[in-house]
């Protein structure tokens, strides 16, 4: 055995040496990059695309002067899958499935933006019960997404245990999504004209359980972080974005509200009966990473408030789909007795439905900000053009402003605090 082990060890050593050589060559190649300041003063560092703190496949080209960032150039596109092009080849109903895959941490928010856009195109009113269930589930999605953000942001900055707590709680939320839609992540639960399925018996107890336990869990995270001196040192005064720059760069969501602008689509342009809910929009004025952290944590508490109100509002019975033959698939029971229902079912699933020609833009407040869905219809059963204005894509533009002139460690805090999802940046 020992005789065999020696050549094996040799190959490993040879590989290590080879790697080391290529790494030093790469470093050499990077340091000689001609820059604005000069080749000997600064070096260019490639952060990503495979870097744990870039939350996906983001590449940032950092021009460094020692530890200071002189220039940060963001390179995206590593996850581009052509979702907008693919949608043009699918029917309106089929395209829901690919919206899940953009912001994979908040699939229900994407479903909602898309479905609301198509419903606007069709001028379709959906039942209140379905609207409230949509609100409830998107708010749970917001909490789940913020939990992933908090966990990963904290782990980036060295707070390991928060990550474990956050994922423990998120698991409960995913179980609710699985119970309701059959899927933990790629839910496709919202459909054009309502919901896919009647939620199963006992689902509200599950949600009530979360509503009851979750506020104390948020207290736990805050105990671990908010007044933690290391956390404060890493986030306060870091990655500052003032309100004027944030608006000019089109930043939205908690990243904008951390800079003192109260723009929240739920309040500005209420959709899906959000105007019937009582909640606050947390705003901070500092514009640093800590302010954005505080906004998101406060937002989770507000979301719990909305979920609690939605639980009271949702009628125990009632339709979950709009009465729109030819657009909303008929109930299975009806198909067994009514010829018409069978014909509609066949038509919806073979050729789809054709909205009138026209364009709509529907914005919703996703966990990351303004998620806009622009749909152009030419009167055929497939979207002529489906465009998603994804908040991460626009917010990421602000990174350059946040990190230039700062330390390299602040880049990691800044990326984390923008809460980007590369799936929706690259689409």
């Amino acid at each position, binding site marked *: 055995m020992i005789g065999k082990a020696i050549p094996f060890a040799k190959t490993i050593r040879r590989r290590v040496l080879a790697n080391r050589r290529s790494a030093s060559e790469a470093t050499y190649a990077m340091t000689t990059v001609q820059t604005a300041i000069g080749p000997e003063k600064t070096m260019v560092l490639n952060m990503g695309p495979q870097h744990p703190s870039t939350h996906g496949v983001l590449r940032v080209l950092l021009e460094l002067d020692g530890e200071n960032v002189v220039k940060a150039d963001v390179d995206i596109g590593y996850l581009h899958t052509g979702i907008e092009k693919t949608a043009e080849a699918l029917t309106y109903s089929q395209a829901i499935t690919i919206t899940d895959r953009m912001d994979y941490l908040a699939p229900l928010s994407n479903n909602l933006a898309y479905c609301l856009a198509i419903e606007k195109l069709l001028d379709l009113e959906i039942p209140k019960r379905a609207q409230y269930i949509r609100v409830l589930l998107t708010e749970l999605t917001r909490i789940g997404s913020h939990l992933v953000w908090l966990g990963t942001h904290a782990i980036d900055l060295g707070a390991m245990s928060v990550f474990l707590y956050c994922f423990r709680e998120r698991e409960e939320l995913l179980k609710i999504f699985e119970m309701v839609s059959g899927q933990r992540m790629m839910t496709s639960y919202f459909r054009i004209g309502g919901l896919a399925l009647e939620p199963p018996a006992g689902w509200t107890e599950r949600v009530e359980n979360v509503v009851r336990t979750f506020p104390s869990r948020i207290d736990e995270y805050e105990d671990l972080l908010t007044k933690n001196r290391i956390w404060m040192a890493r986030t306060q005064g870091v990655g500052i974005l003032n309100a004027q720059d944030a*608006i000019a760069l089109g930043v939205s969501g908690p990243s904008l509200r951390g800079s003192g602008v109260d723009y929240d689509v739920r309040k500005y342009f209420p959709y899906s009966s959000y105007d019937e809910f009582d909640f606050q929009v947390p705003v901070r004025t500092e514009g640093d990473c800590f302010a954005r952290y505080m906004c998101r944590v406060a937002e989770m508490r507000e979301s719990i408030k909305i979920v609690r109100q939605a639980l009271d509002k949702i009628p125990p019975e009632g339709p979950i789909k709009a009465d729109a033959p030819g657009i909303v698939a008929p109930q299975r029971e009806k198909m067994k007795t009514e010829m018409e229902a069978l014909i509609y079912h066949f038509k919806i699933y073979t050729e789809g439905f054709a909205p009138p020609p026209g*364009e*709509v833009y529907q914005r919703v407040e996703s966990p990351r900000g*303004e998620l806009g869905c*622009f749909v152009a219809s030419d009167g055929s059963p497939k979207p002529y*053009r489906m*465009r998603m*204005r994804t908040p991460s894509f*626009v917010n990421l533009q602000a990174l350059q402003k946040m990190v230039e002139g700062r330390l390299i460690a602040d880049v990691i805090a800044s990326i984390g605090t923008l809460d980007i999802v590369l799936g929706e940046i690259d689409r």
Partner: protein
Amino acid sequence: MTETPDLEKNPAVARIRAWQPNAIAGLLYFRGEITVLVPREHLRPLAGFLAGDKELAFTYLSDVTGVDRFPNEPRFELNYHLLSLSRRDTLRLRVSLPGDAPVIETVIPVWPTANWHEREIFDLFGIRFEGHPNLRRMLLPDDWEGYPLRKDYPTEGPR
């Protein structure tokens, strides 16, 4: 469905008419959204006016997106979705561009957020923005051939 309101009474439309009547080539109303059709050469001045006007204050550009109407002419449409945070109002500007010369002036000096939007449109539609500081491929590799969101670009199979 609601009745079409008098679009001329819309504050934005009225202000633009008073400022430069030629900047409006037409008005559309669909599902509660107003679209102002803008001639290509008026877009940049109009953008500056809408963002700078104290009363309208369209300081926030939500989105810029293109539509390819191939084989119709003018082939391309650009939609600018504007938002006024102070008035809680929205407006869509639409510019049509011919297929043989899809070029338009950039709006980055007015709304810096347009930088990436315009780059993405250049990448996927091949529309060029004059005055853009960094107009190169964004989502696709630099050596990619063709513009995928054009209608004459196949979804699958050899290009």
